Protein backbone atom coordinates (compact mmCIF):
# COMPACT_ATOMS: atom_id res chain seq x y z
CA UNK A 1 0.00 0.00 0.00
CA UNK A 2 1.43 3.37 -0.99
CA UNK A 3 1.79 5.95 1.76
CA UNK A 4 0.55 9.07 -0.03
CA UNK A 5 1.29 11.30 2.95
CA UNK A 6 5.05 11.12 2.39
CA UNK A 7 7.46 11.30 -0.52
CA UNK A 8 8.66 7.96 -1.86
CA UNK A 9 11.29 6.27 0.34
CA UNK A 10 14.73 7.60 -0.55
CA UNK A 11 16.17 4.31 -1.79
CA UNK A 12 13.32 3.37 -4.12
CA UNK A 13 13.05 6.94 -5.42
CA UNK A 14 16.78 7.11 -6.13
CA UNK A 15 16.63 3.68 -7.76
CA UNK A 16 13.84 4.80 -10.10
CA UNK A 17 15.77 7.91 -11.11
CA UNK A 18 18.93 5.81 -11.46
CA UNK A 19 17.26 3.45 -13.93
CA UNK A 20 15.80 6.28 -15.97
CA UNK A 21 19.09 8.19 -16.07
CA UNK A 22 21.19 5.14 -16.81
CA UNK A 23 19.19 4.41 -19.97
CA UNK A 24 19.76 7.90 -21.29
CA UNK A 25 23.43 8.00 -20.28
CA UNK A 26 24.60 4.65 -21.57
CA UNK A 27 23.12 5.09 -25.03
CA UNK A 28 24.41 8.58 -25.66
CA UNK A 29 26.98 10.14 -27.97
CA UNK A 30 28.78 11.36 -24.88
CA UNK A 31 29.30 7.76 -23.74
CA UNK A 32 30.54 6.71 -27.15
CA UNK A 33 33.14 9.46 -27.15
CA UNK A 34 34.14 8.87 -23.54
CA UNK A 35 34.26 5.12 -24.13
CA UNK A 36 36.78 5.64 -26.92
CA UNK A 37 38.84 8.02 -24.82
CA UNK A 38 38.81 5.77 -21.75
CA UNK A 39 39.62 2.67 -23.79
CA UNK A 40 42.53 4.22 -25.72
CA UNK A 41 45.18 2.70 -23.37
CA UNK A 42 44.12 -0.75 -24.54
CA UNK A 43 45.21 0.22 -28.04
CA UNK A 44 48.49 1.62 -26.64
CA UNK A 45 49.03 -1.63 -24.76
CA UNK A 46 48.43 -3.76 -27.86
CA UNK A 47 50.75 -1.52 -29.88
CA UNK A 48 53.36 -1.84 -27.14
CA UNK A 49 53.19 -5.64 -27.26
CA UNK A 50 53.43 -5.65 -31.06
CA UNK A 51 56.44 -3.31 -31.02
CA UNK A 52 58.11 -5.35 -28.27
CA UNK A 53 57.62 -8.52 -30.29
CA UNK A 54 58.78 -7.12 -33.62
CA UNK A 55 61.41 -4.51 -32.75
CA UNK A 56 62.70 -5.60 -29.39
CA UNK A 57 62.01 -4.31 -25.91
CA UNK A 58 61.07 -0.57 -25.85
CA UNK A 59 62.95 1.58 -23.29
CA UNK A 60 59.82 1.86 -21.13
CA UNK A 61 58.94 -1.36 -19.30
CA UNK A 62 55.35 -2.72 -19.25
CA UNK A 63 54.95 -1.89 -15.56
CA UNK A 64 56.04 1.71 -16.17
CA UNK A 65 53.66 2.05 -19.11
CA UNK A 66 50.78 0.67 -17.02
CA UNK A 67 51.74 3.08 -14.22
CA UNK A 68 51.62 5.98 -16.67
CA UNK A 69 48.22 4.92 -17.91
CA UNK A 70 46.76 4.65 -14.42
CA UNK A 71 48.36 7.66 -12.74
CA UNK A 72 48.65 10.12 -15.61
CA UNK A 73 46.20 9.10 -18.32
CA UNK A 74 43.18 7.92 -16.32
CA UNK A 75 43.45 9.42 -12.84
CA UNK A 76 44.91 12.77 -13.80
CA UNK A 77 43.27 13.39 -17.18
CA UNK A 78 40.58 11.25 -18.71
CA UNK A 79 38.49 10.29 -15.68
CA UNK A 80 38.34 13.89 -14.38
CA UNK A 81 37.33 14.94 -17.90
CA UNK A 82 34.62 12.26 -17.97
CA UNK A 83 33.46 13.52 -14.57
CA UNK A 84 33.35 17.06 -15.92
CA UNK A 85 31.23 16.22 -18.93
CA UNK A 86 28.84 13.84 -17.17
CA UNK A 87 28.46 15.33 -13.72
CA UNK A 88 27.98 18.94 -14.78
CA UNK A 89 25.07 17.82 -16.94
CA UNK A 90 23.28 15.69 -14.34
CA UNK A 91 20.63 18.34 -13.79
CA UNK A 92 21.53 20.63 -16.69
CA UNK A 93 20.47 18.07 -19.32
CA UNK A 94 17.02 17.79 -17.73
CA UNK A 95 16.75 21.57 -17.53
CA UNK A 96 17.84 22.05 -21.12
CA UNK A 97 15.52 19.30 -22.33
CA UNK A 98 12.74 20.68 -20.11
CA UNK A 99 12.12 17.18 -18.76
CA UNK A 100 12.96 18.11 -15.17
CA UNK A 101 9.30 19.03 -14.68
CA UNK A 102 8.32 15.36 -14.90
CA UNK A 103 10.69 14.47 -12.07
CA UNK A 104 9.79 17.46 -9.92
CA UNK A 105 6.08 16.64 -10.14
CA UNK A 106 6.49 13.15 -8.70
CA UNK A 107 6.49 12.41 -4.96
CA UNK A 108 10.29 12.42 -4.89
CA UNK A 109 12.59 14.46 -2.70
CA UNK A 110 15.13 16.40 -4.69
CA UNK A 111 17.88 14.68 -2.70
CA UNK A 112 16.72 11.31 -4.05
CA UNK A 113 16.61 12.70 -7.61
CA UNK A 114 20.18 13.97 -7.36
CA UNK A 115 21.39 10.80 -5.66
CA UNK A 116 19.85 8.61 -8.38
CA UNK A 117 21.42 10.70 -11.10
CA UNK A 118 24.81 10.77 -9.40
CA UNK A 119 24.77 7.01 -8.94
CA UNK A 120 23.91 6.57 -12.62
CA UNK A 121 26.84 8.79 -13.58
CA UNK A 122 29.26 6.76 -11.43
CA UNK A 123 27.90 3.46 -12.74
CA UNK A 124 28.14 4.58 -16.38
CA UNK A 125 31.63 6.03 -16.21
CA UNK A 126 33.03 3.22 -14.08
CA UNK A 127 31.51 0.66 -16.44
CA UNK A 128 33.39 2.37 -19.25
CA UNK A 129 36.65 2.49 -17.28
CA UNK A 130 36.62 -0.93 -15.65
CA UNK A 131 37.05 -3.19 -18.71
CA UNK A 132 39.58 -0.78 -20.22
CA UNK A 133 41.73 -0.84 -17.08
CA UNK A 134 41.49 -4.61 -16.58
CA UNK A 135 42.31 -5.42 -20.21
CA UNK A 136 45.16 -2.90 -20.32
CA UNK A 137 46.55 -4.47 -17.15
CA UNK A 138 46.47 -7.99 -18.55
CA UNK A 139 47.82 -7.01 -21.97
CA UNK A 140 50.82 -5.29 -20.39
CA UNK A 141 51.44 -7.52 -17.40
CA UNK A 142 51.53 -10.68 -19.46
CA UNK A 143 54.41 -9.28 -21.52
CA UNK A 144 57.59 -11.43 -21.27
CA UNK A 145 59.50 -8.63 -19.51
CA UNK A 146 56.76 -7.92 -16.96
CA UNK A 147 57.11 -9.04 -13.33
CA UNK A 148 55.20 -12.19 -12.28
CA UNK A 149 51.50 -11.69 -12.86
CA UNK A 150 50.52 -13.01 -9.42
CA UNK A 151 52.46 -10.25 -7.63
CA UNK A 152 51.18 -7.50 -9.94
CA UNK A 153 47.61 -8.73 -9.70
CA UNK A 154 47.36 -7.59 -6.10
CA UNK A 155 47.62 -3.97 -7.30
CA UNK A 156 44.71 -4.19 -9.72
CA UNK A 157 41.80 -3.93 -7.23
CA UNK A 158 43.51 -0.97 -5.59
CA UNK A 159 43.96 0.77 -8.97
CA UNK A 160 40.31 0.19 -9.80
CA UNK A 161 39.33 1.54 -6.39
CA UNK A 162 41.34 4.72 -6.92
CA UNK A 163 39.79 5.14 -10.37
CA UNK A 164 36.35 4.79 -8.80
CA UNK A 165 37.28 7.33 -6.14
CA UNK A 166 38.53 9.68 -8.88
CA UNK A 167 35.14 9.51 -10.57
CA UNK A 168 33.30 10.01 -7.28
CA UNK A 169 35.41 12.92 -6.02
CA UNK A 170 35.56 14.86 -9.28
CA UNK A 171 31.95 13.92 -10.04
CA UNK A 172 30.84 15.36 -6.71
CA UNK A 173 32.70 18.59 -7.37
CA UNK A 174 31.44 18.93 -10.93
CA UNK A 175 27.93 17.92 -9.89
CA UNK A 176 28.04 20.85 -7.50
CA UNK A 177 29.31 23.16 -10.26
CA UNK A 178 26.51 21.88 -12.48
CA UNK A 179 23.74 22.93 -10.11
CA UNK A 180 25.54 26.13 -9.13
CA UNK A 181 26.45 27.57 -12.52
CA UNK A 182 24.65 27.89 -15.83
CA UNK A 183 27.82 27.17 -17.82
CA UNK A 184 30.01 24.99 -15.64
CA UNK A 185 32.28 23.39 -18.26
CA UNK A 186 34.75 26.27 -18.67
CA UNK A 187 35.18 26.79 -14.91
CA UNK A 188 35.58 23.01 -14.64
CA UNK A 189 38.32 22.97 -17.26
CA UNK A 190 40.03 25.90 -15.51
CA UNK A 191 39.90 23.90 -12.29
CA UNK A 192 41.30 20.75 -13.92
CA UNK A 193 44.09 22.34 -15.91
CA UNK A 194 44.76 25.41 -13.80
CA UNK A 195 44.04 24.93 -10.14
CA UNK A 196 44.96 21.25 -10.12
CA UNK A 197 48.50 22.08 -11.28
CA UNK A 198 49.06 23.28 -7.72
CA UNK A 199 49.49 19.60 -6.93
CA UNK A 200 52.98 19.92 -8.39
CA UNK A 201 54.25 22.85 -6.36
CA UNK A 202 56.14 22.38 -3.14
CA UNK A 203 54.68 23.29 0.23
CA UNK A 204 51.16 23.08 1.59
CA UNK A 205 49.23 24.05 -1.55
CA UNK A 206 48.92 20.53 -3.07
CA UNK A 207 46.61 19.71 -0.15
CA UNK A 208 44.01 21.96 -1.76
CA UNK A 209 43.87 19.83 -4.90
CA UNK A 210 42.13 16.54 -5.55
CA UNK A 211 44.98 15.33 -7.76
CA UNK A 212 47.54 15.38 -4.95
CA UNK A 213 45.32 13.31 -2.67
CA UNK A 214 44.46 10.84 -5.43
CA UNK A 215 48.12 10.55 -6.33
CA UNK A 216 48.84 9.60 -2.72
CA UNK A 217 46.73 6.47 -3.20
CA UNK A 218 48.64 5.01 -6.14
CA UNK A 219 52.14 3.63 -5.61
CA UNK A 220 53.31 4.23 -9.15
CA UNK A 221 56.14 6.69 -9.51
CA UNK A 222 57.17 6.46 -13.18
CA UNK A 223 60.93 6.77 -13.35
CA UNK A 224 61.13 8.98 -16.43
CA UNK A 225 63.14 12.15 -15.86
CA UNK A 226 60.48 14.58 -16.97
CA UNK A 227 57.81 13.01 -14.87
CA UNK A 228 59.87 12.50 -11.76
CA UNK A 229 59.31 16.11 -10.75
CA UNK A 230 55.59 15.63 -10.93
CA UNK A 231 55.67 13.15 -8.12
CA UNK A 232 57.99 14.92 -5.76
CA UNK A 233 55.53 15.31 -2.94
CA UNK A 234 53.46 12.36 -1.85
CA UNK A 235 50.82 12.96 0.79
CA UNK A 236 49.91 10.28 3.35
CA UNK A 237 47.67 7.67 1.74
CA UNK A 238 45.37 7.15 4.74
CA UNK A 239 44.82 10.86 5.06
CA UNK A 240 44.24 11.02 1.30
CA UNK A 241 41.48 8.45 1.47
CA UNK A 242 39.78 10.25 4.36
CA UNK A 243 40.03 13.66 2.67
CA UNK A 244 38.66 12.36 -0.63
CA UNK A 245 35.71 10.65 1.03
CA UNK A 246 35.00 13.73 3.12
CA UNK A 247 35.13 16.22 0.22
CA UNK A 248 33.02 13.92 -1.96
CA UNK A 249 30.31 13.79 0.69
CA UNK A 250 30.58 17.54 1.29
CA UNK A 251 30.31 18.39 -2.44
CA UNK A 252 27.33 16.06 -2.95
CA UNK A 253 25.60 17.46 0.14
CA UNK A 254 26.15 21.02 -1.10
CA UNK A 255 24.86 20.08 -4.57
CA UNK A 256 21.74 18.49 -3.05
CA UNK A 257 21.14 21.54 -0.88
CA UNK A 258 21.38 23.92 -3.85
CA UNK A 259 19.29 21.66 -6.10
CA UNK A 260 16.63 21.39 -3.39
CA UNK A 261 16.30 25.10 -2.84
CA UNK A 262 16.52 26.24 -6.45
CA UNK A 263 13.72 27.01 -8.88
CA UNK A 264 13.97 25.75 -12.41
CA UNK A 265 11.99 28.00 -14.74
CA UNK A 266 11.91 25.83 -17.83
CA UNK A 267 9.85 27.70 -20.38
CA UNK A 268 9.68 31.34 -19.51
Amino acid sequence: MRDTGRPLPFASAARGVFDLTLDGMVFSRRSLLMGLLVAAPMAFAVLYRVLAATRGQPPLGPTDLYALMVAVYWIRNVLPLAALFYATSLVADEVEGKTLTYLLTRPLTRASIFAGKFAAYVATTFTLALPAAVLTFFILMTAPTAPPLASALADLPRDLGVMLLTLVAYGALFGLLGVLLKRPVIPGLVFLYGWELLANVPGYLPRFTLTAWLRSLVPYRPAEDGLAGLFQQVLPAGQGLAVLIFVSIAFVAAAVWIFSSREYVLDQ
Partner: protein
Amino acid sequence: MTTPAAATAPVLEYTRASRWYGPVIALNDVTTQVPPGVTGLLGPNGAGKSTFLKLAAGQLQPSQGEVKLLGVPAWGSPEVFHRVGLCPEADAFWENLTGRQFLTTLLRLSGFDEAECKERTARALDEVDLAAAQDRKIGGYSRGMRQRIKLAQAIAHDPEVLLLDEPVTGMDPLNRRRVIDLVRRLGREGKTVVVSSHILYEVEAMTRRVLLVHNGRILAEGDVREIRDLLDEHPHTVALRARDPRRLAAAVVCWPAVVSVRLDPAGEWVTVETTRPDEFYGALHDAALEAGVVEMHSPDENLESVFRYLVAR
Protein backbone atom coordinates in the same frame (compact mmCIF):
# COMPACT_ATOMS: atom_id res chain seq x y z
CA MET B 1 -2.84 9.20 4.25
CA THR B 2 -3.61 12.87 4.78
CA THR B 3 -3.46 15.00 7.87
CA PRO B 4 -6.80 16.18 9.33
CA ALA B 5 -5.95 19.81 8.56
CA ALA B 6 -5.14 18.96 4.97
CA ALA B 7 -8.32 16.94 4.55
CA THR B 8 -10.60 19.91 5.27
CA ALA B 9 -8.59 22.59 3.47
CA PRO B 10 -9.52 23.97 0.04
CA VAL B 11 -7.98 22.04 -2.81
CA LEU B 12 -6.00 24.96 -4.18
CA GLU B 13 -5.68 28.26 -2.43
CA TYR B 14 -3.80 31.45 -3.33
CA THR B 15 -3.46 34.05 -0.60
CA ARG B 16 -2.12 37.40 -1.79
CA ALA B 17 0.28 35.47 -3.99
CA SER B 18 2.61 37.40 -6.25
CA ARG B 19 5.41 36.25 -8.42
CA TRP B 20 7.90 38.30 -10.32
CA TYR B 21 10.87 37.53 -12.53
CA GLY B 22 13.34 40.34 -11.95
CA PRO B 23 11.41 43.51 -12.76
CA VAL B 24 8.58 41.66 -14.55
CA ILE B 25 5.47 40.91 -12.51
CA ALA B 26 3.98 37.67 -13.75
CA LEU B 27 1.31 37.29 -11.08
CA ASN B 28 0.17 40.15 -8.92
CA ASP B 29 -1.48 39.82 -5.51
CA VAL B 30 -3.76 36.93 -6.36
CA THR B 31 -6.21 35.65 -3.78
CA THR B 32 -8.53 32.88 -4.88
CA GLN B 33 -9.66 29.37 -4.08
CA VAL B 34 -10.21 26.65 -6.62
CA PRO B 35 -13.01 24.22 -5.76
CA PRO B 36 -13.45 20.64 -7.02
CA GLY B 37 -14.69 20.37 -10.59
CA VAL B 38 -13.25 21.92 -13.71
CA THR B 39 -11.97 25.49 -13.59
CA GLY B 40 -10.85 27.21 -16.76
CA LEU B 41 -7.89 29.53 -16.49
CA LEU B 42 -8.45 31.91 -19.33
CA GLY B 43 -6.24 34.68 -20.55
CA PRO B 44 -4.19 35.80 -23.51
CA ASN B 45 -0.61 34.62 -23.98
CA GLY B 46 1.66 36.16 -21.36
CA ALA B 47 -1.24 36.88 -18.98
CA GLY B 48 0.23 34.80 -16.15
CA LYS B 49 -1.63 31.51 -16.63
CA SER B 50 1.48 29.35 -16.71
CA THR B 51 2.92 31.11 -13.68
CA PHE B 52 -0.39 30.51 -11.88
CA LEU B 53 -0.12 26.79 -12.65
CA LYS B 54 3.60 26.57 -11.89
CA LEU B 55 2.97 28.06 -8.47
CA ALA B 56 0.23 25.50 -7.91
CA ALA B 57 2.53 22.69 -9.03
CA GLY B 58 5.32 23.79 -6.71
CA GLN B 59 7.62 24.58 -9.63
CA LEU B 60 7.97 28.16 -8.48
CA GLN B 61 7.91 29.82 -5.09
CA PRO B 62 5.66 32.82 -4.63
CA SER B 63 7.73 35.99 -4.32
CA GLN B 64 5.12 37.12 -1.84
CA GLY B 65 2.03 35.53 -0.28
CA GLU B 66 1.17 31.87 -0.16
CA VAL B 67 -0.02 29.09 -2.44
CA LYS B 68 -1.41 25.95 -0.83
CA LEU B 69 -2.23 22.74 -2.60
CA LEU B 70 -4.29 20.15 -0.72
CA GLY B 71 -3.68 22.06 2.47
CA VAL B 72 0.11 22.25 2.34
CA PRO B 73 2.45 24.80 0.75
CA ALA B 74 2.79 23.87 -2.92
CA TRP B 75 6.54 24.64 -2.89
CA GLY B 76 8.66 22.03 -1.18
CA SER B 77 5.97 19.41 -0.58
CA PRO B 78 6.76 16.57 -2.97
CA GLU B 79 4.35 14.23 -1.17
CA VAL B 80 1.36 16.06 -2.72
CA PHE B 81 2.33 14.68 -6.11
CA HIS B 82 0.86 11.34 -5.12
CA ARG B 83 -2.44 13.21 -5.53
CA VAL B 84 -1.61 15.78 -8.21
CA GLY B 85 -0.96 15.49 -11.93
CA LEU B 86 0.58 18.16 -14.11
CA CYS B 87 0.42 18.37 -17.88
CA PRO B 88 3.09 20.98 -18.62
CA GLU B 89 2.98 23.33 -21.57
CA ALA B 90 6.48 22.56 -22.85
CA ASP B 91 6.72 19.98 -25.62
CA ALA B 92 9.52 18.10 -23.86
CA PHE B 93 10.16 14.38 -23.45
CA TRP B 94 12.86 11.77 -23.08
CA GLU B 95 12.65 11.21 -26.80
CA ASN B 96 14.30 7.77 -26.79
CA LEU B 97 11.57 6.27 -24.61
CA THR B 98 8.48 4.66 -26.08
CA GLY B 99 5.10 5.94 -24.97
CA ARG B 100 4.67 2.87 -22.76
CA GLN B 101 8.13 3.20 -21.19
CA PHE B 102 7.50 6.89 -20.53
CA LEU B 103 4.32 6.13 -18.58
CA THR B 104 5.64 3.10 -16.69
CA THR B 105 8.77 5.01 -15.69
CA LEU B 106 6.78 7.91 -14.31
CA LEU B 107 4.29 5.59 -12.59
CA ARG B 108 7.18 3.78 -10.97
CA LEU B 109 8.43 7.14 -9.75
CA SER B 110 4.98 7.65 -8.24
CA GLY B 111 5.49 4.52 -6.14
CA PHE B 112 3.46 1.89 -7.99
CA ASP B 113 4.67 -1.69 -8.27
CA GLU B 114 5.34 -3.35 -11.61
CA ALA B 115 1.92 -4.96 -12.01
CA GLU B 116 0.10 -1.75 -11.19
CA CYS B 117 2.38 0.27 -13.47
CA LYS B 118 1.51 -2.05 -16.33
CA GLU B 119 -2.21 -1.90 -15.67
CA ARG B 120 -2.31 1.89 -15.21
CA THR B 121 -0.15 2.44 -18.28
CA ALA B 122 -2.53 0.40 -20.42
CA ARG B 123 -5.52 2.28 -19.02
CA ALA B 124 -3.97 5.72 -19.56
CA LEU B 125 -2.88 4.83 -23.09
CA ASP B 126 -6.43 3.72 -23.89
CA GLU B 127 -7.79 6.90 -22.39
CA VAL B 128 -5.79 9.05 -24.82
CA ASP B 129 -6.10 6.60 -27.72
CA LEU B 130 -2.40 5.83 -27.96
CA ALA B 131 -2.48 2.08 -27.32
CA ALA B 132 -1.57 1.35 -30.93
CA ALA B 133 1.48 3.61 -30.76
CA GLN B 134 2.66 2.57 -27.28
CA ASP B 135 5.81 0.84 -28.50
CA ARG B 136 6.92 3.65 -30.79
CA LYS B 137 9.52 6.09 -29.55
CA ILE B 138 8.09 9.43 -28.49
CA GLY B 139 10.65 11.11 -30.76
CA GLY B 140 8.63 9.75 -33.69
CA TYR B 141 5.24 10.93 -32.40
CA SER B 142 3.23 13.66 -34.12
CA ARG B 143 2.51 16.89 -32.26
CA GLY B 144 -0.97 15.72 -31.30
CA MET B 145 0.31 12.36 -30.06
CA ARG B 146 2.92 14.11 -27.95
CA GLN B 147 0.22 16.24 -26.38
CA ARG B 148 -1.80 13.14 -25.63
CA ILE B 149 1.06 11.17 -24.05
CA LYS B 150 1.80 14.24 -21.92
CA LEU B 151 -1.80 14.22 -20.78
CA ALA B 152 -1.64 10.47 -20.14
CA GLN B 153 1.27 10.86 -17.71
CA ALA B 154 -0.75 13.46 -15.81
CA ILE B 155 -3.78 11.20 -15.36
CA ALA B 156 -2.14 7.75 -15.14
CA HIS B 157 -1.76 7.77 -11.35
CA ASP B 158 -5.40 8.83 -10.93
CA PRO B 159 -4.71 12.12 -9.13
CA GLU B 160 -7.32 14.12 -7.26
CA VAL B 161 -5.97 17.37 -8.71
CA LEU B 162 -5.05 17.93 -12.32
CA LEU B 163 -3.21 20.98 -13.57
CA LEU B 164 -3.38 21.14 -17.35
CA ASP B 165 -1.42 23.83 -19.16
CA GLU B 166 -2.88 24.35 -22.66
CA PRO B 167 -3.62 20.61 -23.01
CA VAL B 168 -5.25 20.60 -26.45
CA THR B 169 -2.75 22.80 -28.26
CA GLY B 170 -1.74 21.21 -31.55
CA MET B 171 -4.39 18.48 -31.49
CA ASP B 172 -6.63 17.66 -34.42
CA PRO B 173 -10.38 18.28 -33.95
CA LEU B 174 -11.18 14.66 -33.14
CA ASN B 175 -8.63 14.37 -30.35
CA ARG B 176 -9.43 17.86 -29.14
CA ARG B 177 -12.99 16.70 -28.69
CA ARG B 178 -11.83 13.54 -26.94
CA VAL B 179 -9.67 15.47 -24.48
CA ILE B 180 -12.43 17.96 -23.79
CA ASP B 181 -14.76 15.05 -23.00
CA LEU B 182 -12.13 13.50 -20.75
CA VAL B 183 -11.68 16.74 -18.80
CA ARG B 184 -15.43 17.08 -18.35
CA ARG B 185 -15.70 13.50 -17.15
CA LEU B 186 -12.89 13.99 -14.64
CA GLY B 187 -14.68 17.05 -13.34
CA ARG B 188 -17.92 15.10 -12.99
CA GLU B 189 -16.05 12.41 -11.05
CA GLY B 190 -15.21 15.04 -8.43
CA LYS B 191 -11.62 15.72 -9.36
CA THR B 192 -10.25 19.23 -9.28
CA VAL B 193 -9.09 20.17 -12.74
CA VAL B 194 -7.50 23.51 -13.56
CA VAL B 195 -7.11 23.89 -17.28
CA SER B 196 -5.46 26.88 -18.89
CA SER B 197 -6.21 28.14 -22.35
CA HIS B 198 -6.20 31.34 -24.33
CA ILE B 199 -9.23 30.15 -26.29
CA LEU B 200 -12.56 30.98 -24.75
CA TYR B 201 -14.52 28.41 -26.74
CA GLU B 202 -12.19 25.66 -25.75
CA VAL B 203 -12.63 26.46 -22.07
CA GLU B 204 -16.34 26.89 -22.51
CA ALA B 205 -16.56 23.37 -23.90
CA MET B 206 -15.01 22.03 -20.70
CA THR B 207 -16.54 24.11 -17.94
CA ARG B 208 -18.66 27.09 -17.03
CA ARG B 209 -16.39 28.20 -14.20
CA VAL B 210 -13.52 30.39 -15.31
CA LEU B 211 -10.80 32.54 -13.82
CA LEU B 212 -9.92 35.37 -16.16
CA VAL B 213 -6.25 36.26 -15.93
CA HIS B 214 -4.82 39.38 -17.46
CA ASN B 215 -1.52 41.14 -16.80
CA GLY B 216 -0.89 38.89 -13.82
CA ARG B 217 -4.18 39.64 -12.09
CA ILE B 218 -7.40 37.71 -11.68
CA LEU B 219 -9.66 40.02 -13.59
CA ALA B 220 -12.87 38.12 -12.95
CA GLU B 221 -14.05 34.74 -11.86
CA GLY B 222 -17.37 33.12 -12.49
CA ASP B 223 -19.59 31.91 -15.31
CA VAL B 224 -18.01 31.77 -18.73
CA ARG B 225 -21.30 32.71 -20.45
CA GLU B 226 -21.10 36.23 -19.13
CA ILE B 227 -17.77 36.59 -20.87
CA ARG B 228 -19.06 34.95 -23.97
CA ASP B 229 -21.86 37.45 -24.37
CA LEU B 230 -19.22 40.12 -24.70
CA LEU B 231 -17.78 38.32 -27.66
CA ASP B 232 -20.73 38.55 -29.98
CA GLU B 233 -19.36 41.47 -31.88
CA HIS B 234 -15.87 39.94 -32.22
CA PRO B 235 -15.41 37.29 -34.91
CA HIS B 236 -13.52 34.24 -33.65
CA THR B 237 -10.48 33.17 -35.70
CA VAL B 238 -9.53 29.52 -36.21
CA ALA B 239 -6.43 28.35 -38.09
CA LEU B 240 -6.46 24.82 -39.48
CA ARG B 241 -3.64 22.89 -41.13
CA ALA B 242 -4.94 20.23 -43.49
CA ARG B 243 -3.61 17.77 -46.03
CA ASP B 244 -6.15 19.16 -48.49
CA PRO B 245 -6.61 22.80 -47.44
CA ARG B 246 -8.48 23.84 -50.61
CA ARG B 247 -11.10 21.17 -50.04
CA LEU B 248 -11.48 22.37 -46.46
CA ALA B 249 -11.78 26.01 -47.57
CA ALA B 250 -14.37 25.09 -50.19
CA ALA B 251 -16.39 23.17 -47.62
CA VAL B 252 -16.49 25.80 -44.90
CA VAL B 253 -16.88 28.93 -47.03
CA CYS B 254 -20.60 28.28 -47.60
CA TRP B 255 -21.45 27.81 -43.93
CA PRO B 256 -23.59 30.64 -42.54
CA ALA B 257 -21.44 30.84 -39.38
CA VAL B 258 -18.31 31.62 -41.40
CA VAL B 259 -17.48 35.25 -42.13
CA SER B 260 -14.27 34.78 -44.08
CA VAL B 261 -11.86 32.09 -45.26
CA ARG B 262 -8.21 32.65 -46.12
CA LEU B 263 -5.54 30.29 -47.51
CA ASP B 264 -1.96 31.03 -46.49
CA PRO B 265 0.58 31.57 -49.31
CA ALA B 266 2.26 28.23 -48.62
CA GLY B 267 -1.11 26.55 -49.10
CA GLU B 268 -1.04 24.58 -45.84
CA TRP B 269 -3.15 26.59 -43.46
CA VAL B 270 -6.75 27.75 -43.76
CA THR B 271 -7.75 30.66 -41.53
CA VAL B 272 -11.44 30.96 -40.83
CA GLU B 273 -13.34 33.78 -39.12
CA THR B 274 -16.66 32.93 -37.53
CA THR B 275 -19.19 34.82 -35.47
CA ARG B 276 -20.79 31.63 -34.18
CA PRO B 277 -17.97 29.39 -32.96
CA ASP B 278 -20.24 26.74 -31.42
CA GLU B 279 -22.01 26.22 -34.71
CA PHE B 280 -18.71 26.24 -36.56
CA TYR B 281 -17.03 23.67 -34.30
CA GLY B 282 -20.18 21.55 -34.36
CA ALA B 283 -20.13 21.38 -38.15
CA LEU B 284 -16.36 21.04 -38.47
CA HIS B 285 -15.97 17.36 -37.59
CA ASP B 286 -16.94 15.80 -40.95
CA ALA B 287 -15.26 18.46 -43.07
CA ALA B 288 -12.08 18.12 -41.00
CA LEU B 289 -11.98 14.36 -41.51
CA GLU B 290 -12.51 14.66 -45.27
CA ALA B 291 -9.83 17.34 -45.70
CA GLY B 292 -7.39 15.64 -43.31
CA VAL B 293 -7.04 18.36 -40.70
CA VAL B 294 -3.91 17.62 -38.68
CA GLU B 295 -3.60 20.69 -36.52
CA MET B 296 -5.85 23.45 -35.32
CA HIS B 297 -5.35 26.50 -33.18
CA SER B 298 -7.05 29.76 -32.46
CA PRO B 299 -5.04 32.96 -32.31
CA ASP B 300 -5.98 35.01 -29.30
CA GLU B 301 -6.61 38.40 -30.86
CA ASN B 302 -10.33 38.17 -30.10
CA LEU B 303 -9.67 37.39 -26.51
CA GLU B 304 -7.26 40.30 -26.32
CA SER B 305 -10.01 42.62 -27.46
CA VAL B 306 -12.41 41.21 -24.87
CA PHE B 307 -9.83 41.73 -22.18
CA ARG B 308 -9.21 45.27 -23.33
CA TYR B 309 -12.95 45.79 -23.11
CA LEU B 310 -13.15 44.27 -19.63
CA VAL B 311 -10.21 46.28 -18.36
CA ALA B 312 -11.73 49.48 -19.69
CA ARG B 313 -15.12 48.79 -18.07
